[in-house]
């Protein structure tokens, strides 16, 4: 073997080693990145700001509203405040009057409020609606399917959906009047 050949061989070996090590490291790095990303998104069934709001259809039970049933996709082009609540939930009681006070004004501006009730019985909801004089539609999620679809945790939980059907903001917990109005302005059709 001549000196040149030896040098050539050595060079090749070094290159092979570099390729080998690089590819192993790349594979490992990819695995780590995958593990981290998928873990941070482990709750990826929860819809977050920027996601398309999944469609659903529910019976509407408020006597103050003429809709029989509501389907989210019917409100394309309108801003939608999708609120999950229950009659037994104190913070929900606190924010309902705010929602009602802003509803007439913002309904005219192209916003719909859908207050999905997670109650067990319609009666409790009816009485609540009467007590608070709510006029916006109250869809009733009797099988908890929509609750599971949106992975609703502690209520109240509110999704502000823009006219394009994308979630603009997710708010867990009760809203103050000012914050509520701010969010409504964000999703108001231009």
């Amino acid at each position, binding site marked *: 073997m001549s000196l040149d050949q030896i040098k050539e061989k050595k060079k090749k070996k070094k290159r092979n*080693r570099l390729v080998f*090590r690089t590819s192993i490291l790349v594979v*490992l790095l990819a*695995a780590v990145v995958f*593990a981290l990303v998928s873990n941070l998104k482990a709750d990826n069934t929860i819809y977050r700001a920027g996601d398309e709001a999944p469609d*659903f259809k529910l019976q509407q039970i408020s006597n103050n509203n003429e809709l029989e049933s509501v389907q989210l996709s019917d409100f394309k082009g309108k801003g939608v405040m999708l609120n999950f609540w229950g009659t037994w939930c104190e913070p929900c009681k606190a924010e309902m009057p705010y929602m009602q006070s802003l509803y007439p004004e913002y309904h005219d501006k192209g916003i719909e409020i859908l207050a999905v009730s997670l109650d067990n*019985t319609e009666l*409790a909801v009816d009485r609540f609606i009467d007590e608070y004089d709510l006029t916006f539609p109250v869809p009733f999620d009797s*099988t908890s399917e929509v609750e599971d*679809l949106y992975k609703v945790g502690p209520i109240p939980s509110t999704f502000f959906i823009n006219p394009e059907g994308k979630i603009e903001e997710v708010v867990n917990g009760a809203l103050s009047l000012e914050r509520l109005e701010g969010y409504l302005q964000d999703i108001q059709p231009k």
Partner: protein
Amino acid sequence: MREIKCECGHVNPVGTVLCEACGRPIEGNQHLDGNNNKKLLNMRYDGTARRSQTYNKSIIDKIWSFFSSVKVGVWLIVIALVASMVGTIFPQEMYIPANAISRNPSIYYEDQYGIFGLIFYQLGFHNLYTSWWYLVIIALIGISLVICSLDRFIPLFKALRHQKAKKHISFLSRQRLYSETKVVSNEEINLLKTNLKKQRFKIKVENGHLLAEKNRFSRWGPYVNHIGLIIILLAAILRVLPFFYMEEYVWVREEQKPIVIPGTKGQYYIENKDFILETHSEEDDRFEAAIAQEGMIPSNFQTDIVVYQSGEKSVPGAEAELEPILDDSVRMNKPAKFDKYTVYQSGYQLNEFTSMTFKIHETSDSEEVALDTFTVDLAAPEPEYNLENGFRVVVDKYYPDYYLDNNGIPASETNFPRNPAYVFIVYPPNSDVAEVSFVGIGRNIDATGENNYKLGIEDFEMHDVSGLTVKYDRSLPLFGLGAAIFMIGVIQGMYWQHRRIWIHPTENGILMAGHTNKNWFGIKKDIENAIEGTNITMVEDQQELDEK
């Protein structure tokens, strides 16, 4: 550094400690394995060049050599262990008890544990095991495992595959087992060979130099073991994917209409036909004493369930046809299975109200003779009841789980009929004069004190609620495979030993040396058996114990 040419003519790669061919210690590299001041040679990885320690030119090589260090690996493990321990000092966020003052971690930890709780929370230990940095440490351990293994396995594998029978005298004399025999006949050598073969040694001869070797595969044990560990880590990573793992908890009430099983995308519904809680009999001698001491002891938790598959539906929430696909009993440790899901009995809640029957009687009637009765179905209470005998009862307020809130106002604590209470407006027959009554369990309040009619609870029915876990875990076979390979590796390295015996012919006799990775007593036995019937000197154990 340059490649090193040994006296025997073999060209060794940089960083070699013992010549790959003849085993002669390479001058200038002995510090690498700490052979400098020792008589015996360190036989770790057979003195091969671990590449990581020699080439450090590119950034890739630098990363490689960082992870190939066992020291780094051990430190990573120590850091992970310490972090894991710290994470157990206070409960993780998901285990903050439901009855805590606040379940908000920013309040709970400081409130409950003071300044240490605050630090614990601020450093993010309340969500340790899913935090990115904890995962990074675990991932780095995985990387270190892969690279450490590769960096050692490949040179060791090559060295053992290409090893020569002919070894340098200094290699033999610096082995732990060594002997010199001045005069040995050919017959004796042949007998030695036969004896070695009998003990399943593989024999390689080169110009009278002899290498007898057995159980080399035992050296691969640790690497097989590492492959198992890596598969386990991989399984843990994959488990976060919804395809591999899903677990949901669902409360199902007896006789409630089917509800969606969470996590199944509205595809499956579940119904609770009956929840059964059985206790051990007091009459049974075996349990008598325990029951006297502890009270009732459950012997069975069981839910009779029906699972439905939903028909096609255009959009979630829409009504769909339900087709029953499973009718089964779920008991403790006896889950029910459908599709890919398994349903486990995990909790229960007794005695929610199903229905309540009320009677109306005159307030003044001490006999409480019922003038009229009506039954409220708590799953679907009516807004008003028109009764047979002309009474009309309007349900003005309904509290499924009655309590007085902070302001003393009646409210419902939960959504469930655990402690139902009502405000009834009673219209007597042919009258528009309303009487208001508040009725609850053990409560009957007449707000005005002037009511002519009184409502009483005549009867009620109750139901139980069953808590079921619905899950699937497709990563388990992978964990099993990893654990099995792990165990194979342990056994492979533990119960076999890699034994080698070298014979180096001298003028009239031989030099003999032996090496094993463990169980020196065993290899001495092998050698004793091999030299039986010959004059060959038994090897001497030259082990030098480090001075304390």
